[in-house]
């Protein structure tokens, strides 16, 4: 379906993307076109290459071949910070924040580059009104008002996950990649968290890797099913659910898995 559409309307487009480690092919020719403002869930069994796909898009890994286009501009092979400056931001499966900085400082670090403060050492942070106002707004958005001055390392797990999302959206990127944002959370935490993700990514393009099928069907406009480094289906949740190939390859067992994990 994506091949016929013009690349101009796509927020993110992958073309024949491949990645191999030595002789092992992890990503085996992925084509994907994500329209601006769409929420995409990427699902697939463990080891299917979902996280690798995120790493290729965000610049953590360089692809072996193929193209990644962000708003029509090629970003494959660029450094993570270059890609981030072009408007793509990601979170991590394993919580990845600044442990010895406070919640406020964590979020302000995320804000600084996008407001143009770069490597400045001739201005005081306390005087950067726009950065500080934006940071306060972010703290409120991710619901950490009461933890403003607590070191990140001292937060609860769920709070750290919220902070991770906050740092990810801080720079105002339009394309957001969330790698298993609800991993390790309880059922109640998860539903609360999904509401948070929906709220902070309003109007943005969202790609998320997710195991919890409840989350996937609640959050996503479209689902991409990745199996053995290939996208075997990319469609609306209802269509994917009905897709015989998906059911056979993945979905049935995964639903059982998710229930088996039981949180």
């Amino acid at each position, binding site marked *: 379906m994506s091949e016929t559409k013009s690349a101009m309307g796509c927020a993110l487009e992958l073309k024949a993307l491949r990645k191999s480690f030595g002789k092992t092919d992890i990503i085996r020719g992925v084509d994907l076109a994500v329209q601006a403002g769409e929420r995409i869930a990427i699902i697939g069994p463990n080891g299917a290459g979902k996280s690798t796909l995120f790493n290729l898009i965000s610049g953590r890994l360089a692809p072996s071949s193929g193209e990644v286009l962000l708003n029509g501009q090629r970003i494959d092979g660029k450094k993570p910070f270059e890609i981030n400056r072009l408007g793509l931001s990601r979170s991590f499966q394993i919580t990845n924040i600044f442990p010895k900085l406070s919640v406020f400082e964590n979020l302000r*670090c995320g804000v600084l580059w*996008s407001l143009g403060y770069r490597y*400045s*050492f*001739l*201005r005081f*942070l306390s005087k950067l009104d726009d950065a*500080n106002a934006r940071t306060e707004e972010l703290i409120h958005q991710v619901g950490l008002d009461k933890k403003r001055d607590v070191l990140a390392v001292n937060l609860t797990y769920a709070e750290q996950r919220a902070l991770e999302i906050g740092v990810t959206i801080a720079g105002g990127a339009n394309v957001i990649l969330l790698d298993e944002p609800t991993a390790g959370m309880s059922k109640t935490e998860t539903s609360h968290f999904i509401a948070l993700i929906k709220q902070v990514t309003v109007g943005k393009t969202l790609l998320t890797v997710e195991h919890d099928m409840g989350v996937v069907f609640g959050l996503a406009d479209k689902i991409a099913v990745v199996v053995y480094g290939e996208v075997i289906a990319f469609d609306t949740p209802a269509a994917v659910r009905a897709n015989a190939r998906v059911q056979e390859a993945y979905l049935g067992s995964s639903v059982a898995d998710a229930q088996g994990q039981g949180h």
Partner: protein
Amino acid sequence: MTPSAVSYYRFAPLNLGRALVWTLFALLLILAPLLFRSSLALTMLSQMGYLVIICLSYNILFGQGGMLSFGHAVYTGMGAFIAIHAMNLATQGSLPVPLVLVPLVGGLGGMFFAVLLGFVTTKKSGTTFAMITLGIGELVASMALMFPGFFGGEGGVTTNRVYGTPFLGLTFGPQLQVYYLIAAYCFVCTALMFAFTGTPLGRILNAVRDNPERVEFIGYNTQRVRYFAFIIAGFFAGVGGGLSAINFEIVNASDSLSGARSGGFLLFTFLGGAGFFFGPIIGAVLLVFASVLLSEFTKAWLLYLGLVFLFMVMFAPGGVASLVMMNLRVVKYGLFKPFWALYAGLVATGALLVVGAAALVEMVYHIQLNSALGPEVAFAGLTLDTSSTGSWLGAAALALVGLGLLEWVRRRFARAWSAAQEQIEAENKRRAVA
């Protein structure tokens, strides 16, 4: 942005607590030579002044940026060499630099080499960074022998700091005037380095220390962040080096550029406490006490220093500064009362152990180094005899009894300490709920 939001995050325009601390720091720098009037004290104070700058500059790398450098002496040393050549050129009249600006020349020298060498050094972080600094340190130290014209060979380069027209009537011949020059630079550089911690680059440097990979995903090039911080640290290191050149009027490559010198900066910054801005100031003071005073008292001072370092790494990895802050926290919660007796006990039993062990060490050193002088060793007002078993047994017994008692007190202390910490945690939780 509403006005109420602005007042919420903005600091008060005048922070009285901070102003007080800086005023006290300035007063201390001004009054110190008036309180301690001996020439030894003045020598030590002068060294402390520029070592404070150097240790603080080292901590920009180590404490604030997580960069474990084994080669900081390269930048202090090169700063010192550039400064001393500038002084000699000024004396000849070919470079119009008054002495008060020579430390800045040293700073620019240190900065120049940080720009040059730091580009390679800061490409990597972690262990690789540490290895590269070690390699570059050795490289520069060996260059000193290849370019005797610049480095002065084994004798080093000498100068005379009294040249040109006096500055505000100061010739900088007397040590006291040199001290005040150092003190002025110490104050300004400390203030500038503190200001740096509150800038965007300073904060992102902390983020790079905590989690370099994540910084790459919020738009920052971590190599650049490390490089810029390295250059700033190089500048202040050079200022410190320039002041040391003025202070001693000699710079010697085998000393100023040595790995041992770099190791000293690391060691004492760590001992002072890298986790707090003021930690390295304590470290610099300790460095002078160890290298000037302790080395006067005993030939085994490096051994004692090593033991202290080992002890601190094991029991107080945050350095002296963290010990101070942890105790202040207990004081703040009004729980310090039982610790007076416990600390007194620790000091008393620790002293027994130290005296006993030191007596043993001194006797061993005496046998190895001074046996020609006879078996008697003067030690803490006593005379020990290396040929008598009584001295050996007495010292060993003292050390063992001290160790046993110290352990007994330490256990009680540890119990009381963890109880106090639990109480503080509970209090914090109670406050968070309220």
